[in-house]
């Protein structure tokens, strides 16, 4: 699709990158909390 607006493509990519960043931050937070819970003996 050569006539696809360039900025539309960028908008999609940027939204997906933000979502991916959120997922990665969530995973880091998850493993931090998991570590603390496990250290508590559970």
């Amino acid at each position: 699709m050569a006539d696809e607006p360039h900025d539309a493509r960028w908008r999609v990519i940027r939204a997906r990158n933000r979502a991916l960043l959120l997922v990665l931050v969530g995973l880091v937070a998850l493993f931090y909390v998991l570590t603390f819970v496990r250290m508590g003996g559970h």
Partner: protein
Amino acid sequence: MSELPSAGIVPSVEADWSRASVGDYVQILKPRVMSLVVFTGIVGLAIAPGHLHPFLAAVAILCIAIGAGASGAINMWYDRDIDRVMRRTASRPLPAGRMLPGEALGFGCVLAVGSVAVMGIAVNWVAAELLALTIAFYVFVYTIWLKRRTPQNIVIGGAAGALPPLIGWAAVTGGVGWGAIALFAIIFFWTPPHFWALSLYKSDEYAAAGIPMLPVVAGARETKKQMLLYTLVLWPVTAAPWLLGLAGAVYAGGAGALSLGFTVCATRVWSDTTDRAARQMFAFSLCYLFLIFALLLADHGLGGGR
């Protein structure tokens, strides 16, 4: 059933770059299916004997949800040709050309591996193995092997949808008990009448896509008979948690009333010559499963069972 007509299948129009939005990524996880899977998993986790730290319980539920989503994404990747033929599925991201097939497959695989790994690391490896079995069964046994070959596709494939309560149970106990098997059996025997109700009024679409659902292969009469038989089997099966001492009188009474309602629906489908009763039964079947598991949860909260 490779003999079935597949002339209606048109080659998929695939995009040259991905227009898939975040919403499309969510859509390929089949969130509506996921909600029922998560709910039954929560009930398995809640009524299992033992205790699990609330955070670990939340992680277990998250892993069940993501694992179910991963199965859905891989299923949509594999079924993108037939999804394009059926009105019900034609607007999904892959057949609509918004998402590249490789994206869906990659996304599904990453989520599948990630959910199993996190379940194993955070909760226990029995629950992780059951989650891996669920995903593998849904993808390889149901989607790839049975769905396009036999009218028993959703009977055998239904085992994948029935496993989440076992995973929840295993997350708490580290194993599988008779109570967990009873929960599995409820979903397993509920699945055929649920999907056959849908396929009765969508049989044209299934036939066009070459999927050998029972109404397409054996006809409406045989399907309606089988649906009625399965609703009768659900009477003793839904009584099992009460007989095993997992639930008390509140559950037993409620489950009996719901099973009566389900059987009445099936008898209406049997005598109905239009689609109306089948549509009503499909809607009722969703409420039926939700309410059976909600009753188990409520009864457990009220201290029912032994």
